[in-house]
């Protein structure tokens, strides 16, 4: 049984169609990298999964439950944690308050998030809008983990960060992969890092999924053809 399954999903921004035919599935404990050039529909796919955009046609299932008609907060309660593009913490709450506000019962709590990101513990009383970009990204991941998700979705989690901070984020993702049964859906521009952490890859082109397979099967020719790298 797949944890997440998309079947021929289409989606619109108002009257403009952004997704045409996106299909893939993700199993429990698996890491999936969603790839594609800019504007191909990666973030739109994530927004549609999280129901920040309505599903135009097709079907999305989370743990066999069709979520087409569910509102965003109910999808989150099914165990979908989102680390949105651009971090988007609650700027006028402290680090600790950001985490507490999102907390749901489960194994992830202030202590375990602090263990994953010790820097958040050091900055726990600091307002989120006074954190560096990297720290805000850690907070966004920590906040999503505090909802105790089964599936963590990261949209461009390392974008615009310094190399050292990016490395810290990737280390945390490796740690999540190796030490928990969490499923990860990752969108990022760093192909080399994605190859290291992902079990399988789905490539989007013009709003449709055009290639999917294991990371090992992702050949240079495929990368050249769809990603232009």
């Amino acid at each position, binding site marked *: 049984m797949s944890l997440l399954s998309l079947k021929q999903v289409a989606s619109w921004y108002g009257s403009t169609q952004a997704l045409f035919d996106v299909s893939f599935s993700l199993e429990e404990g698996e890491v999936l990298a969603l790839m594609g050039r800019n504007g191909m529909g990666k973030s739109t796919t994530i927004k549609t999964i*999280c129901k*920040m955009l309505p599903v135009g046609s097709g079907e999305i299932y989370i743990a066999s439950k069709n979520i087409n008609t569910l*509102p*965003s*907060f*109910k999808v*989150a*309660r099914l165990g979908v*944690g*989102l680390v*949105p593009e651009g971090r*988007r913490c*609650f*700027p*006028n*709450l402290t680090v600790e*308050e*950001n985490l*507490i*506000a*999102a*907390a*749901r019962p489960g194994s992830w709590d202030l202590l375990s998030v602090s263990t994953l990101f010790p820097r958040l513990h050091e900055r726990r009383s600091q307002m989120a809008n006074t954190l560096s970009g990297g720290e805000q990204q850690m907070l966004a991941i920590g*906040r*999503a983990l*505090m*909802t105790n998700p089964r599936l963590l979705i990261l949209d461009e989690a390392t974008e615009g960060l310094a190399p050292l901070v990016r490395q810290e984020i990737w280390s945390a993702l490796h740690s999540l992969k190796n030490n928990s049964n969490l499923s990860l859906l990752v969108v990022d521009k760093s192909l080399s890092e994605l190859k290291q952490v992902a079990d399988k890859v789905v490539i989007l082109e013009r709003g449709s999924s055009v290639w999917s397979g294991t990371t090992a099967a992702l050949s240079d020719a495929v990368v050249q053809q769809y990603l232009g790298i």
Partner: protein
Amino acid sequence: MSRESIFDCVLILCLAAVPIWAHFAEEPFIITLATRAAIFAIAGIGLNLVLGQGGLVSLGHATFFGLGGYAMGILASHAQTYMPLSEWPILIEGTKSMPVIWVVALLASGIAALLIGALSLRTSGVYFIMITLAFGQMFYYFAVSWSAYGGDDGLSIYLRNDFPGLNTLDPIQFFLIVFVWLLVVWIFTATLIRSPFGLALNASRQSTERVETVGINPYHLRLTAFVISGMITGLAGALFADLNRFISPSMFSWQTSGEIMVFVILGGVARRSGPILGAVVFIALEHFLGGLSDYWHIYLGALLLLVVLFARGGLIGMLLGRERVHE
């Protein structure tokens, strides 16, 4: 202890000390002024919960203030005439017991807040302001036409309701009751805004979409806050009616909603003690400037303009800066 916590303690101690001094100096009018300030502070704390934490600009909080007042007035008027409120299907008599009146006021304003909130919170921004204002005016005109309880003229109550073990006609003892309620409400809301519920409410003000993505339904969150806020304001209304021994439709008017908002903005939106300082300053201006001119509201307006333009965070923000504030 932060500067703001110290300030809060000093402010509350001063509010308690002034009537105690007035009691010994035999200045009962000062005690009444302090009681009014404390009651208005309670109403302001109620509004501050939704305005400061939830970002909901309600121009209809007079609805709850008036409902609390009319709950007191109706129950007490029936107690004073020995006429039951209802004989069928069950006998409901009036009462002059303050605790019973408070429970009725809390329930009435809570139910009204639930119904008004359930409708108005489906909108936002200017539509929310207009709907809450419209509800307030509906209650206002209903009270104006409700001749059984005084209609436009209002209703005088010739007794002061009872509280076990206290002489409520003694100004200082009545102040004590109001002050204890102020402390209870202040501590309750201060605890609430630091709880996961309060933090999520604050977060929903910053971004509804982000709150939804962590599994929180912002509508339920705001509705709960709106009901709690309405109940607190309703309690203030019941105390205000008891202080004056008079109720009138003006308790429901949009001017009353505006005044409650002035307490909050003047003191500092989202600041724990903002409504207390705002209410104290308002009452002080009303007393001192009101003695100089009938047009004292002009000076109040000027002060409000200065505060809004130059003191972000209200008077508390001006005094303490933007230290650890969730604005």
